[in-house]
C-alpha cells in the first residue's frame, strides 16, 4: 500500500478501482451489522464463502459483508446486485440454493422474499419493501454498498471527494460557512447548530484546538451511531478531518463506548489504514494540513455522552459534567477550543461539502434540515434503523415504515429522545418530526430513539422505568438530579404498587421543576421528562393508579389479580402445573381456583391457558369474585351431558 501524496493520485486510484469493477457483474451482499450478526449472519457469510470456493466463483461473483442495512427485524439480510434482489432471514441452508437458482440461473426464491403482512404481496427488490420505500437514506444508505474494512469500496462510492474539495477548493472559513448555511443541527441530542459551534471554535484564540467524535451512545434501544461507526468508519473520519481543517485543529479524538467492540475494531482499522495511505497524519494529500486521530474508550457511564463529562473523562478524570459556560467551543479539552459532535453529525459533513449547503437545506423543515436516523424499536412490526427526512410525520414512520403494531394491538404512545425524552400519544401522531416540534410536544429529538408502545403498556410504569434508568446513571454531583430522582423514583414505584397518595402528584411536579430548573447538566434538566410527558398526556392513568388502585393497562403486577372464570375452565391442569407459586387448586375434572393469598401475579397462568379456553382473566381496581362453592367445581362436559 503506497502513500497517496496528492489529490491527483487519489483521483487516479479512484478511477482505477472503478474501472476494474463491472457494475453489471453479480455481487452478493450480506449484512454483518450487529443485528444481523446476532441473528446468525456470520454462519451465512461462512456458507457463502464455502459455496463460492467450491464452485470456483471467486472471480465472476462479487461478495461483500457490510455494515447494518437497517431492517434488523428480518435479518440476516442478503442482497444480490445489480438487480437488488433482497432475501430476508436467510439461513446457511439457503445459501447453495441462492447460488444455484439466483446467481447461476435467474430464478428468484419466493420464500426468502419480503411478504407484506396486510396484502400478502411479495417484494423482490429492496426498494419495493415498504420499510425502505419511504426512507431517504442519504447518510445510512452507503452502509449497504461498502465493506467497512475496505478503503477501495469507500473510494469507489465517492469517498474522500468532500475532503479533497474542502482542502483544495475551500478556505476553512468557507467550510464553516457552508456547514452553517446548511443549518446542520447536532444529531446527538442538543440539536445545537454545528456550524455555529465551529465558527465559535474557529474564532476562539489559541493555536491548539481539538475535534471530538462523541460515540458514547447510551440511550436504551438506540444504535444508529454504533451502526454508522461499524458500517462506514471512513465517512466519520472524513467528516472529522474536514471539521478539523475548518477550525484549525490538528488533533482529534473519538470517544467510543466500551460496549461497541465491532465499531472500535472497524474504526481502529480505518484509522490505521488512513494513516498509511496519507489521509491522516502529516501533510494530508500534499495540502500542508496535518491531522491525527486518537481513540478513547469510554468506561460505561451514560452521563459521559454529555459533552462536558465526556471531555473530562477524556482528560482522565471522573466523568462528571462541569458547568457551561464556558462552552467547549471556547474552553474544552484541556482548556482548549474544542468541537464535539456526535457520529451522525460528522457523517453528514461530507454530504454537505459535496452537495453544497443549499441542496442539504432543501430537505427538511424550517428549523431542521436534512435527514435523521431513528432506531425504531418496541411494539412495532419492523424493528430497525430508519433514515427519514426531517418533517415526516410520526404516523408515517410508525405505520408506513414501521408496519404498525404487531398482534392486532392498539397503538398507545411513542417514546422519543432517549430516557429523558417524552411519550407522544395517538392524537399527536401527525406532528412533523423535527427538533422543535418534538420539543413542543414535551419530548425531544435526542439522539433518535423511538420506542413504540401498545395498549398493554402502563404509562406510569414507563415513567418509573426511565426514571429508574436515569437514577442509576446520574453522576450524583448535584442535588436536584441525584436526590430529586431518588425521590421521584420512590414515589413512582409507590404509585405503580398501589400505595400512591393524591399528594404525590404535587410532590412529583415540585421535584420535576427543581430538577429541570436547577440541575447542573442536561441529563438532570431533562430527567423529569418521562414523568412530565406521561402525566401531560396520560393523567387519567396516574389518577386510576392513585384513586382506584387500578392499572388500566393491566400491567402493574401489584395492582393486577388473576382469576379463573369457572364457566370457561376445562380443568386441563396446565396452569396448575405451571404456577410457580403453587397458588392454583384443582384436579382433573375439578374447576381450578387461584388462591389470591398465595398468588404473586406473575401471569404465567394467563399465558399458558389455551387460547380455545381463555379462562384466565386479569382484573385490576375491582375485587376478585369469590371462588365458586366446592360442590359446583365439577366440570360437566357438554358432550357427556347430552
Amino acid at each position, binding site marked *: 500500500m503506497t502513500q497517496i501524496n496528492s489529490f491527483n493520485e487519489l483521483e487516479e486510484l479512484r478511477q482505477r478501482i472503478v474501472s476494474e469493477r463491472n457494475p453489471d457483474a453479480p455481487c452478493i451482499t450480506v449484512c454483518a451489522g450487529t443485528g444481523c450478526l446476532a441473528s446468525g449472519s456470520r454462519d451465512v457469510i461462512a456458507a457463502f464463502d464455502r459455496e463460492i470456493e467450491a464452485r470456483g466463483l471467486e472471480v465472476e461473483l462479487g461478495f461483500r459483508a457490510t455494515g447494518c442495512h437497517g431492517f434488523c427485524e428480518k435479518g440476516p439480510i442478503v442482497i444480490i446486485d445489480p438487480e437488488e434482489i433482497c432475501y430476508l432471514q436467510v439461513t446457511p441452508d439457503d445459501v447453495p440454493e441462492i447460488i444455484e437458482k439466483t446467481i447461476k440461473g435467474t430464478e428468484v426464491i419466493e420464500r426468502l422474499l419480503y411478504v407484506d403482512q396486510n396484502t400478502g404481496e411479495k417484494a423482490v427488490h429492496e426498494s419495493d419493501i415498504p420499510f425502505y420505500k419511504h426512507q431517504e437514506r442519504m447518510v445510512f444508505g452507503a452502509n449497504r454498498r461498502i465493506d467497512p474494512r475496505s478503503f477501495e469500496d469507500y473510494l469507489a462510492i465517492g469517498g474522500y471527494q468532500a475532503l479533497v474539495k474542502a482542502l483544495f477548493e475551500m478556505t476553512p472559513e468557507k467550510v464553516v460557512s457552508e456547514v452553517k448555511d446548511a443549518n446542520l443541527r447536532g444529531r446527538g441530542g442538543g440539536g445545537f447548530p454545528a456550524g455555529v459551534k465551529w465558527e465559535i471554535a474557529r474564532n476562539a484564540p489559541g493555536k491548539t484546538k481539538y475535534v471530538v467524535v462523541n460515540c458514547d451512545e447510551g440511550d436504551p434501544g438506540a444504535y444508529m451511531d454504533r451502526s454508522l461507526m461499524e458500517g462506514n468508519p471512513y465517512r466519520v473520519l472524513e467528516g472529522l478531518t474536514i471539521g478539523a481543517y475548518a477550525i484549525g485543529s490538528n488533533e482529534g479524538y473519538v470517544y467510543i463506548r466500551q460496549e461497541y467492540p465491532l465499531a472500535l475494531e472497524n474504526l481502529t482499522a480505518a484509522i490505521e489504514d488512513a494513516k498509511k495511505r496519507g489521509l491522516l497524519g502529516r501533510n494530508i494529500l500534499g495540502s500542508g494540513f496535518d491531522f491525527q486521530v486518537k481513540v478513547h474508550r469510554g468506561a460505561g457511564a451514560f452521563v459521559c455522552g454529555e459533552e462536558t463529562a465526556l471531555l473530562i473523562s477524556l482528560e482522565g478524570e471522573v466523568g462528571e459534567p462541569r458547568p457551561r459556560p464556558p462552552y467547549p467551543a471556547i474552553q474544552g479539552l484541556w482548556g482548549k477550543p474544542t468541537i464535539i459532535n456526535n457520529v451522525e453529525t460528522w457523517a453528514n459533513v461530507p454530504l454537505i461539502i459535496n452537495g453544497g449547503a443549499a441542496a442539504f437545506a432543501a430537505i427538511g423543515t424550517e428549523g431542521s434540515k436534512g435527514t435523521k436516523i431513528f432506531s425504531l424499536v418496541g411494539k412495532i412490526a419492523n424493528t430497525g434503523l430508519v433514515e427519514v427526512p426531517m418533517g415526516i410525520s410520526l404516523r408515517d414512520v410508525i405505520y408506513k415504515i414501521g408496519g404498525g403494531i404487531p398482534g392486532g394491538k392498539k397503538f398507545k404512545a411513542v417514546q422519543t429522545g432517549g430516557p429523558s425524552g417524552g411519550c407522544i400519544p395517538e392524537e399527536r401522531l401527525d406532528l412533523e418530526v423535527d427538533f422543535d416540534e418534538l420539543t413542543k410536544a414535551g419530548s425531544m429529538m435526542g439522539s433518535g430513539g423511538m420506542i413504540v408502545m401498545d395498549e398493554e403498556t402502563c404509562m406510569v410504569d414507563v415513567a418509573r422505568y426511565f426514571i429508574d434508568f436515569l437514577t*442509576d*446513571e446520574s*453522576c450524583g454531583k448535584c*442535588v436536584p438530579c441525584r436526590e*430529586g430522582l431518588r425521590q421521584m423514583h420512590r414515589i413512582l414505584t409507590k404509585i405503580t404498587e398501589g400505595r400512591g397518595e393524591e399528594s404525590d402528584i404535587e410532590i412529583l411536579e*415540585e421535584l420535576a*421543576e*427543581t430538577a429541570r430548573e*436547577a440541575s447542573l447538566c442536561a441529563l438532570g434538566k431533562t430527567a423529569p421528562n418521562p414523568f412530565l410527558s406521561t402525566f401531560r398526556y396520560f393523567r387519567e392513568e396516574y389518577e386510576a393508579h392513585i384513586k382506584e388502585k387500578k392499572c388500566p393497562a393491566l400491567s402493574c403486577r401489584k395492582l393486577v389479580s388473576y382469576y379463573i372464570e369457572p364457566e370457561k375452565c376445562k380443568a386441563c391442569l396446565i396452569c396448575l402445573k405451571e404456577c410457580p407459586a403453587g397458588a392454583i387448586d384443582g384436579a382433573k375434572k375439578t374447576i381450578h381456583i387461584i388462591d389470591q393469598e398465595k398468588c404473586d401475579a406473575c401471569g404465567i397462568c394467563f399465558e399458558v391457558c389455551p387460547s380455545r379456553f381463555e379462562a384466565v382473566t386479569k382484573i385490576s381496581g375491582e375485587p376478585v369474585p369469590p371462588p365458586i362453592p366446592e360442590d359446583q367445581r365439577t366440570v360437566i362436559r357438554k358432550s357427556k351431558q347430552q
Partner: protein
Amino acid sequence: MSEIRMQIDGNEVQTKEGMTVLEAARGAGIPIPTLCHHDELQPFGGCRLCIVEVEADGGKNIIASCVHQAEDGLVINTRSDKIDRIRKSILELLLAHAPESPPLQELAVEYGADKNKFEQEASFCIHCGLCVRYCAEIKKKHAVGFIDRGIRKEISFLPEIAPAECNDCKECFPLCPTSYLQAAFVLVESLAFPRGKATRA
C-alpha cells in the same frame, strides 16, 4: 482587569472580570445561600442552593451563581417565588439525609422547608464535597474521595492514604456540615489504620 457593572436585586454592583456572580453579590453585602461553596476552593456547583434569576430577552434564566462568571450588564434577582420554591425543595431533599445539621436547619427556617417531607435516608452525607476538594486542592493529599456514582455515591477515606496523612491534619473536620465525615473517618480508622496509630483506643 476591567470593571464590570451589574444589577443585583435592584442595586448597582461593581466587580472585576473573573469574579463569579456569587462573589460579586456577597462583595456587595447581598446574601445568597450556599452549602458547597468555600472561598479557598474551586467552584463546585453541586448543591444548587445559590441559584439566582438572570433577566434575558424578556425572560428569566436560572443560573448557579457560584459558577457563573460576572458579566457587564447582567440583571440578577437573588430571590423570587420560584427561586425560593426551588431552594425549599433542595433543602427538603437534603434534610432527608441530615435533619439535624445546623446550617440546614437555619436555612430550613428561612425557606420554610419541612424536614419530614421525605422519608429519612440512611446516609447523612449531603455530598457538598468540601472535604474531598479541600484535601485535594489545598492539602493535595487526596486522602478522602467520592466513590461510586448517582444515588450510591459516597465519600470515603482511602485506606492507602489516610493512615499516613490524616492523624496530624483533620482540617476537613470542621468543614463538614453534617459530621458524616467524622463517621467515615472512624470507619477507616478502625478498619485500616495500623494498631497503635489510631487516635482512639
